[in-house]
């Protein structure tokens, strides 16, 4: 009897149907929306502070032009970014469900009251922002400033809350032992990551303000220079970036840090992009504006903003990348298998828990290949495709069948960014056959290989690999050898 789709345990890849995004990688899908969301939301948060600053400059008589700038499109722009930022935030949530329901489900289970608190801050942002946006013209100075104070604090508050949840994924800290929400929330990377993101908010607001200033009419060149000078303090926090970055890196788990610093070529490349782009933005912003040597025109500001998108994007990919092989470190592998489940799944097999059949069973000549495709779907497709991005065909298609068996059996040795193989020896053989078949361009005929000797050999390799993730597996093996 086939399994009931509602019945697989919630923390397993098989608990939910899996979509095929080939040739795109799932990380790319979430990364794409992530960039847009982080960009808009950060701009709206920093923009709140920039509005506050200009309002204060205007009210205290320090900058007579300030009010005119605020009441130009800038105010509206901040507000619309906030609304669309909120919508893309919902989008992040829904995308996370598509990509890894068990992960977002675990996050919701642990942190729902934190999220509910963040929701209160959203309301504050909406009400204060809307009141200012809509009635600002007709309100007295004190009320205006207070509304902006509330809006800015609420915006920063929403960052504060979400930052705890996101940084927990990389460094869950003492939560792993105690299960305490606050131990998880104020985790080792909480502060560096919060400060880092805050600097990004200020920088994006400064860039946005500069672009708007160049676009709206009604200011003379001299007036623009003066207003730019007023914006420039918002570039200053970038000076702290190198220190915050170093702190962030120091607080990370060792293996994640190593990948960023060169252990993984891709992540290291993104890291260099982020650092380079940030240095350019910061250097230009700080030197040119603060020292009043230069005038930043619209084209330059737009170029820097484009670099900022690049840096934001790189940052998102790094964030997704360095957690591997986990979505929640020590707790849940990217595959939605928990470390504790691996040993059981080696015995029972992953497919015993999968209620969803293949959509195109007729495309595969044998049951073993169908099984292999299902194993790929559950244990590899979260990070790989077959022929597209991170293609298994390209990565391992050329290898001999023995080599394939060994490298997959010792997956966490093949790369520390991969979890231990969480299926049975028979399933491993099916997977390897499936990849070989794909590499052979899907021939109409394919021999089934269920040789007991081969399976036994695979079982031995799996045992050698251990059920532990890297680097614990390597340590355990070294301990074994020295005994």
């Amino acid at each position, binding site marked *: 009897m086939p399994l009931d789709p509602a019945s*697989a345990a919630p923390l397993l890849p098989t608990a939910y149907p899996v979509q095929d995004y080939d040739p795109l990688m799932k990380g790319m899908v979430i990364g794409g929306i992530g960039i847009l969301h982080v960009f808009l939301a950060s701009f709206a948060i920093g923009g709140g502070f920039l509005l506050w600053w200009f309002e204060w400059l205007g009210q205290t008589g320090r900058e007579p032009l300030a009010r005119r700038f605020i009441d130009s499109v800038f105010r509206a722009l901040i507000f619309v970014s906030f609304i669309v930022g909120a919508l893309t935030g919902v989008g992040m949530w829904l995308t996370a469900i598509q990509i890894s329901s068990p992960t977002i489900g675990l996050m919701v289970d642990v942190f729902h*009251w934190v999220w509910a608190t963040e929701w209160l801050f959203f309301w504050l942002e909406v009400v204060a922002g809307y009141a200012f946006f809509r009635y600002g013209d007709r309100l007295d100075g004190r009320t205006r400033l207070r509304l902006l104070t509330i809006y800015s604090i609420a915006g920063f508050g929403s960052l504060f809350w979400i930052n705890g949840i996101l940084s927990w994924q990389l460094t869950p800290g003492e939560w792993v032992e105690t299960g305490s929400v606050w131990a998880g929330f104020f985790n080792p990377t909480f502060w560096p990551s919060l400060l880092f993101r805050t600097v990004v908010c200020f920088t994006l607001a400064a860039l946005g303000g500069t672009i708007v200033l160049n676009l709206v009419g009604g200011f003379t060149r001299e007036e623009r220079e003066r207003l730019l000078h007023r914006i420039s303090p918002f570039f200053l926090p970038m000076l702290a970036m190198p220190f915050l970055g170093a702190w962030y890196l120091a607080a990370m788990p060792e293996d994640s840090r190593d990948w960023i610093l060169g252990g993984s070529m891709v992540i290291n490349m993104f890291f260099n992009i982020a650092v380079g782009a940030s240095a350019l933005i910061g250097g230009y912003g700080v030197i040119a504006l603060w020292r009043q040597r230069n005038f930043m025109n619209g084209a330059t500001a737009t170029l820097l903003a484009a670099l900022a998108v690049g840096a934001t994007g790189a940052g998102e990919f790094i964030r997704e990348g360095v957690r591997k092989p986990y979505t929640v470190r020590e707790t849940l592998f990217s595959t939605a298998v928990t470390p504790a489940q691996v040993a*059981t799944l080696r015995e029972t097999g992953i497919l015993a828990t999968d209620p969803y059949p293949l959509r195109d069973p007729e495309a595969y000549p044998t049951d073993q290949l169908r099984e292999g495709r299902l194993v790929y779907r559950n244990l590899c497709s979260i990070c790989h495709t077959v022929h597209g991005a991170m293609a298994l065909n390209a990565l391992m298609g050329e290898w001999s069948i023995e080599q394939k068996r060994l490298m997959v059996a010792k997956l966490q040795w093949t790369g520390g960014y991969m979890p231990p193989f969480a299926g049975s020896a028979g399933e491993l053989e099916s997977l390897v056959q499936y990849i070989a078949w794909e590499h052979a361009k899907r021939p109409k005929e394919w021999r089934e290989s269920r040789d007991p000797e081969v399976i036994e050999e695979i079982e031995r390799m799996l045992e050698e690999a251990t059920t532990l993730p890297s680097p614990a597996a390597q340590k355990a093996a070294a301990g074994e050898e020295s005994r």
Partner: protein
Amino acid sequence: MMLPAVDTETAAPATSTLPEVLEALPTNTVVYLALLIATYALHAVFMNYTFGGMLWTAVAALRGRYSEGAPRDTLATVVRDWLPSAVSAAVTAGIAPLLFVQIVYQRSFYTANILLFNRWMALLPALIVAVYAMYVVKAHGSAGVRDHGRAAKFLARGDVKSAAAVLAALLIGYVGLAFIENHLLSLAPETWRDRYVEGSPALPAAPAWIRLAMWALGALPTFAALAAWQLRRGAGGANDEDRARASRPLALLALTGAIGSLVLGTIVWSADHGGTRLLDDSIGRLAFGSLAGALAVGGAAWITMALHRRLSAIMVALAVSASLVAILAHAVLREGARLLALAGTPAAAREPSGLGGLAVFLVFLVISAGAIAWIVRAVARALPTTHRA
């Protein structure tokens, strides 16, 4: 922190009644269910206004009400000006039930999301475009646009506003349909496997359309009541004449919506859920009775207002309260149906594995409620009544 090991046991669905189902749930789950119902009702208030207001605006735009030199139509102006805030409120309010539904019905909500895939995810771009379109309808010589002569002229054109309003109304309708399809699929675990293999049909099935019609009609009385309340508060400088003029069209809208949604509601709620008809269940009957009663009371209030061509304080208050009761009753019926449909399956209501953080939430609930009350008062004080647009 205990994480479950592999577990593939299947429980057989059992026919039961709502009191039985509730009795068997852990207390925490019942609390989360109550929060889901309450926050969903809040969401529904704003989304009903949004949908009704969007329709009203689209019709007004098509009648040229937003073109230069059009006759004074205070209601159309007020609704148009409040739409963007209404949709922001609907979205913000929607986040809370989105959170609670993931806690209580994690399995079924997520599975439906994934199975609908494109169709479900499309609601986001639809909403984003709808929000921008609403601003196009609304844009009228605001500070930023004034600077740009050509853009301002384009946005002020009647046909541009009509097109934007119709587009936004369609998109908002699509968002509603997406939520409905998702909800219906989430109630039917027995169909998930086939849906995964076969994919979604090109068009949603009949029950989704019936439910969409029920919701769209049900949104109208809420919109009419809230719009009447705005006019009474002098929004857009509304005077007695504006109120008198608006009374009959709003009454017609509210009555059509109430009767229509009640007829469709009878069809929807008499369906079989997990072997039980909601209308045969004691809680289900109570909720349906409240819904019908509230719609009747609201209808009576509207008939009175239409006959007297006057939006009197007491009748408007009655219509607003009736709408709120109807929304709550509707929310209870929805949850009742879901509890029955999923009872005894592994996708039934569940308890989250962690519960910490409630105290912090409560502290900030008080603080933010205070801050919001302050904002509302400060703005109300600073503005003379006639300027409360």
